[in-house]
């Protein structure tokens, strides 16, 4: 008994240090692991209080564009840009130590489908952010869904403005940013006096032309005509005759989609040589993507006013173009919207890291003031109204399908989605 009684403490005494050591070691290891994790990846409970699809090593986002239907033509580039950005971010270690996974859904060029898929992404998949939509109509369709379920949408297209949602970051330009600088430039350097406004018949061209008209009239100049054609219209000979009759100095064009191809081919065929700039063609809708379909020789000499051209020569852009071509093939071109789509994941990453959380509300709070010095277009910053400060550039279309940049606004232009005096 005694030996046993003695033996027990001694036994314990002999074992205790080992146990303590082991325990201490384990605890120390755990704390070390924990502190390492705090640096690389904070705990999931901490960064995700709203039950998003975030695990210890993964965060899921959504990509929502049309890969079928008529809009697939335009949206393909955005999908490629967003995937590239996500892959690059993952290669750099992800966001808050988590690799980004994406769920891609097809909006099928159909607005109700966009609404349905966005609901699926937010409700079923609980994605932390969605990169997507292209047309205004698709954005308008998903907007109530994002506001109801409190999601975050990064929307890449230049658009008509008149909107500011707490659940959307607009990475493209709103109409005044794109249009005013373009008109000012053409008036100042080309001495334009009269304008003909032409667009496809839907909200973006109509709002854009409204802003353009107000601005032109404010400058004391003349709008000699304004016309709209149904989406998909392919016969433009009548409007070309109107140009010939009214002889405007500038044709301000916001024709989109397949109509674009028809319009420029017929303009060229009708003997209007755009390189002579009589009349000068200023477009806000033709990016390098569209020129692929139009053919460089058919649009040579036209000017475009937007924030990004593939031919930008800064280092960011060189690296971006190189990476894009490596990923998606050498013959690919990059347009304004593609670049804006590329900004989406990066802006989201920056906001998440600033907030230290994936929670939508915290990301929203952190978003204003986020800067991106690595943007291919140079430098962008998120305005409190959720649009981006950006420069506007004027490009002159060349036969190789690229734009030569002839002008760049000296300062970043403030986004103004509800322009006073232009409504």
């Amino acid at each position: 008994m005694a030996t046993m009684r003695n033996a027990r403490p001694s036994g314990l005494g002999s074992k205790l240090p080992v146990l303590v050591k082991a325990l201490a070691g384990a605890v120390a290891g755990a704390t070390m692991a924990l502190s390492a994790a705090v640096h690389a990846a904070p705990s999931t409970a901490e960064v995700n209080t709203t039950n998003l699809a975030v695990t210890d090593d993964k965060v899921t986002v959504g990509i929502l564009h049309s890969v079928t239907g008529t809009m697939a033509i335009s949206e393909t580039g955005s999908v490629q840009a967003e995937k590239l950005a996500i892959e690059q971010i993952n290669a750099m270690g992800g966001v808050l130590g988590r690799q980004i996974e994406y769920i891609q859904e097809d909006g099928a060029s159909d607005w109700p489908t966009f609404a349905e898929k966005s609901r699926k992404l937010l409700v079923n998949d609980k994605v932390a952010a969605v990169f997507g939509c292209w047309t205004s109509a698709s954005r308008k369709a998903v907007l109530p869904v994002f506001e109801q379920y409190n999601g975050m949408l990064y929307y890449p297209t230049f658009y008509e403005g008149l909107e500011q949602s707490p659940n959307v970051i607009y990475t493209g330009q709103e109409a005044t940013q794109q249009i005013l600088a373009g008109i000012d430039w053409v008036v100042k350097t080309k001495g334009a006096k009269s304008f003909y406004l032409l667009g496809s018949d839907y909200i973006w061209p109509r709002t854009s032309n409204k802003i353009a008209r107000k601005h032109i009239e404010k400058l004391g100049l003349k709008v000699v005509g304004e016309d709209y054609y149904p989406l998909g219209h392919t016969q433009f000979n009548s409007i070309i005759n109107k140009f010939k009759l009214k002889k405007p100095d500038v044709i301000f064009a916001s024709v989109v989609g397949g109509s674009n191809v028809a319009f420029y081919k017929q303009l060229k065929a009708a003997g209007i040589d755009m390189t002579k700039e009589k009349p000068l063609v200023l477009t806000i809708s033709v990016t390098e993507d569209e020129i692929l379909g139009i053919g460089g020789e058919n649009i040579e000499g036209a000017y475009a006013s937007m924030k990004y051209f593939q031919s930008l020569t800064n280092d960011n852009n060189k690296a971006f173009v190189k990476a894009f071509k490596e990923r998606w093939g050498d013959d690919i071109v990059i347009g304004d919207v593609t670049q804006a789509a590329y900004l989406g994941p990066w802006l989201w990453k920056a906001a998440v890291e600033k907030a230290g959380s994936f929670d939508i509300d915290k990301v929203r709070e952190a978003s204003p003031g986020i800067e991106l010095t690595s943007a291919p277009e140079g430098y962008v910053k998120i305005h409190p109204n959720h649009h981006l400060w950006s420069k506007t550039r004027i490009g002159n279309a060349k036969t190789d399908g690229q734009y030569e940049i002839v002008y760049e606004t000296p300062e970043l232009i403030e986004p103004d989605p509800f322009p006073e005096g232009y409504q």
Partner: protein
Amino acid sequence: MSYTGLRSLLPKNDLLSFGVLALLLVVILPLSLDIFRLNLIGKYLTYAFVALGLVLCWGYGGILSLGQGVFFGLGGYAMAMFLKLEASSPENTAIQSTPGIPDFMDWNQLTELPWFWEPFHSLGFTIIAIVLVPSVFAYIIGVAMFKRRVGGVYFAIITQAVAAILTILIIGQQGYTGGVNGITDLRTLNGWDIRTDGAKYFFYFLCVFLLFVCLLIAQFVRKSKLGRLLVAMREMEDRVRFSGYDVSNFKIFVFCLGSAFAAIGGAMFTLQVGFMSPTFVGIVPSIEMVIFCAVGGRLSIIGAVYGTLVVNWAKTSFSESFPELWLFAMGALFIAVVMAFPNGLAGLYKKYGEPLLLRVIDKVKAGRGGLGGDLNSKGVVHERQ
């Protein structure tokens, strides 16, 4: 309705299929699906209204309309106009230059509500308009066409042109209609938030209820003399005319009925999805709705519902996993239905499913000491040649 009346309206085989459908829609689906999926089913069911109308017009009447989207759209727009007016109260739209009108009107410099929007402040008017406006429109088209004996392919192409006209008009007159964006951001119905889960359940069951009402009306038409006349007209129009019937009036009636069904579907669509857009008015959705009907079986009103559900379910799940393959599958489905199964799902069911089911039921009855029923289902409409 008396028991015998009910019995003649819904003979045993039809009662069985109505019952199975009711079981599926009212019990099985709501219990097994979450609200997101159930809401999707609710959306598909709104197309079933159109497909049902097409069964009557096309399957029975031989009138193929490629412009049913027009009526679906009119119904949906009527509903959306009411909801939009409610969402555009002066308080909600205070930031606009003209508060109190829908936002898209403000963007297009309208300063007051257009006259044809005014009545849509009233829910009662809206509900009447949902059914009446498309029916009257269908009546006008029907009178103009059928009185002049325009039929078949010509009718199909003219309705297609009507769909094209209306789409261009809606998109072009965006100050009055919301343009290509449609009428979006609808929130409440008489102050009740339609975006909540509870509202979605409510609208789902309302949709199912209305669908069954329409199904019963269609069944009534089918079983009535009108239904038999329609089939007769489809097979040999001149003989019906020579027998002294005014063929065009029957056609007009069934076309109006089909368009009223489509309009109810459109209104339910707006309520469940929360917006209406011109994409439904166009030619492509109109043709897709014909395929829902064809997959279900153009002669079967119940089949139309299943056809719609199956095609849309396949579309959703396919496009979630293989968006690129979806069009191939859809195209193949069109061809397969036309080439191999002209009577669609209903044809397959009639051939294999129903005899089996009836036999099982009769066996059960016989086991209980009852007499075996006859296996030949009566009232099977002749297949079209």
